[in-house]
């Protein structure tokens, strides 16, 4: 039995690259992520972390190479890939004039998941927004917006979670909450790829790290070894 028959990789890329005009933002990326694995993407600004996450989310098409999400081709099996993954990016994806509760209700209906009021309020309570459920998002701070956006990872019940700077804008309590979620994802067999500059926190929870420099993989290995590797490269 081949490996794909048994349990497809959460992410598989071969020679993946993305070009903007003549500039290659990402090139020659070979990557394999197991279900339940937590992979940290590290690297300086402009190294290609966000581009890689957006490629995996299907927001960009590869300029070179191939990629598969649980064995699926995002270009050909778009909806199946959408069901399999969630991306939380720098942007909140929120409507200022909807309330926190309405936002979750719209997402739930679009997901085709009939979520009751109790479930949605329960989710809001997890991110300490239950008391503000009927307030419009326009009055929310950056941290509150982030908490609400992060609920997509809970509502969508994905098998792969892509996080771009998941700890930014959050207070210490919010950061601990996200850390707990990521560890729970691992326990549930959900793969996580997170791009972050918060190395002290993320190297503690990630299994493996991948260092990107100028759009290419400069190093990959155990997450705990990443700080020493980055120190050497300075």
């Amino acid at each position, binding site marked *: 039995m081949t490996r794909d028959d048994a349990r497809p990789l959460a992410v598989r890329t071969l020679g993946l690259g993305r070009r*903007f005009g003549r500039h290659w933002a990402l090139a020659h990326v070979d990557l394999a992520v197991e279900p339940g694995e937590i992979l940290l993407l590290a690297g300086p600004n402009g190294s290609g972390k966000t581009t890689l996450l*957006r490629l995996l*989310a*299907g*927001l*960009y*098409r590869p300029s070179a190479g191939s990629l598969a999400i649980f064995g699926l081709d995002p270009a050909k099996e778009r*909806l199946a890939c*959408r*069901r399999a993954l*969630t*991306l939380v*990016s720098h*942007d*909140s*994806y*929120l*409507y*200022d*004039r*909807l309330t926190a509760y*309405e936002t979750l209700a*719209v*997402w739930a*209906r*679009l*997901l*085709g998941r009939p979520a009751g009021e109790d479930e949605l309020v329960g989710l809001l309570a997890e991110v300490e927004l239950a008391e503000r459920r009927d307030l*419009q998002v326009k009055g929310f701070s950056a941290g509150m*917006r982030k908490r609400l956006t992060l609920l*997509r990872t809970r509502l*969508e019940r994905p098998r792969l979670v892509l996080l771009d700077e998941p700890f930014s804008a959050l207070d210490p309590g919010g950061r601990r909450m996200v850390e707990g979620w990521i560890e729970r994802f691992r326990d549930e067999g959900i793969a996580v790829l997170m791009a972050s500059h918060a190395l002290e926190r993320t190297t503690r929870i990630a299994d493996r790290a991948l260092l990107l420099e100028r759009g290419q993989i400069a190093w990959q290995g155990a997450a705990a070894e990443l700080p020493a590797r980055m120190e050497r490269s300075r």
Partner: protein
Amino acid sequence: MRALGQIATLVRKDLLVEWRGRARLFSVLLFGAVTLLLFSFAVGPDSLALRAAAAGFLVLALLLSSTMGLSESFRVEQEQRALEGLLLLPVEPVALFYGKALANTVFLLLLAPILIPVALVLYAVELEAARILGLLGLWALAAAGLSAPGTLYAAMTSRLQSQDVLLPLLLFPLVVPVLMASVKSADLILTGDPMAQMRSWLVLLIGFDVIYWSLCGVLFPYAVQEAQ
């Protein structure tokens, strides 16, 4: 069936967002009314000339108001990249199109109760109730004919800084058939239809509505894709 539910959710979401930001609706209404007023000034106090031009001016006011409303409808989607957030969900882009286009049609329908009476008063046109209902029906068909291509082009231009200029430049040539059929039909409602021409103009208008709603639905997914 699931797509229909998603479209209904998107329409409800858009109308709720629209209602909470009523300022846009009021500003577009005011713009339409001022346009009608300026057209009447351009013709002067000749009531016969005003009546003769009333149908054209009314449809033009709808067209000009629609471009304001359409470009704003996608600005909301781009503020926090909310549209990208929708595209990341397991929703077919075609459902996003029909949700947005239906919401835009409703938005344009909301202009009718104000702009039609304003036009009737300014252009000294007297109409019985049945003809006013006919005019409302025609307004709905014209609004549908404008909002489908308008939604497509608003999506295409929403990431551009020059959207306000580009949208009418792209939209106006495309909607000439809708404009012509609407003006002719409105004129026949306002001034009478002794030669029974209305049916052919309405068939033309409905035909273009069907073409636009079908074709734009097919093209919309390409319009919202990131640069590939």
